[in-house]
């Protein structure tokens, strides 16, 4: 089946649980949050939740960030 994982189409073998997907992504040990079709699936359900064809899956985590910022090239004020 096909799923859209973090915005990219992926072919995966059914059946596949969220826990299985995370394992395959090398994120088994990482603390992440998962959304399927815009609905948050709590960590406690990752083991039982089976993905379906065309599911849109988002896997997110915390990274360094403050306010929104971009490169400062050409953006100086004298």
């Amino acid at each position, binding site marked *: 089946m096909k799923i859209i994982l*973090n915005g990219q189409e992926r072919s995966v073998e059914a059946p596949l649980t969220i826990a299985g997907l995370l394992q395959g992504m090398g994120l088994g040990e990482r603390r992440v949050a998962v959304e399927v079709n815009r609905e948050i699936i709590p960590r406690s359900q990752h083991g039982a939740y089976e993905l379906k064809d065309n599911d849109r899956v988002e896997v*997110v985590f*915390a990274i*360094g*960030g*403050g306010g929104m910022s971009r490169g*400062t090239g050409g953006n100086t004020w004298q």
Partner: protein
Amino acid sequence: MAVTAETIRSTSSDPLIIAGTAYASRLLVGTGKYKDMNETRRAIEASGAQIVTVAIRRTNIGQNPNEPSLLEVLPPSQYTYLPNTAGCYNAEDAVRTCRLARELLDGHALVKLEVLGSEKTLYPDIPQTLKAAEILIKDGFKVMVYTNDDPVVAKRFADMGCVAVMPLAAPIGSGLGIRNPYNIRFIVEEATVPILVDAGVGTASDAAVAMELGCDGVLMNTAIAAAQNPVLMAQAMRKAVQAGREAYLAGRMPRKQYGTPSSPLGGTFF
């Protein structure tokens, strides 16, 4: 000096209280734009900050597989994480980001809400921010809200139940300092929740000015991360926030137009 012990006592009993939790440090820092995780850790340690903002992003973005994760470098047991909605341009994306952060951080309710309205100035979109704040507060989040330096808007956010209001001093990442101290003062005077300057600080004196104006704290990222020596600047910011707070509590002398001698005028022998 006899005053030292008393001074230490007075500052240690002067915590920043946000949503019922007391913090000894009034400096909040972002964790973005550092060279690597080691520099991130060293700068944040030097800043003395207890609350750190983090971004929520897809796992395949911004991750060097050889590096430890942010959660390992800054353990949530030692720091209060403040997930922020940086990069969101509408209420829906901001609410979605906060809900994912809550799942990621095991029910964590404290968030920084930031909904931007201009890619160029990074000024906030106030109608969208109000909309998101309302949804998040109803949903049980404790919202620290990034806003512009409009006193009426700041009061609206406090009245609706935001736990802290964070006006900008200047555009995010600009380092231009406090462009409108009078507005910041109006906001502080009307405050019913902590007021933190968020964005626009460029160097230590800017942070001190924010605190001297009566702000309860300062949140910054680029001023530290983009300094030539981020760890040293983090230390400078820690001192500036503390110095500014003490100056505010001490109450400054009145400004005078002309000079006033500080030595007695009588008893001169010349």
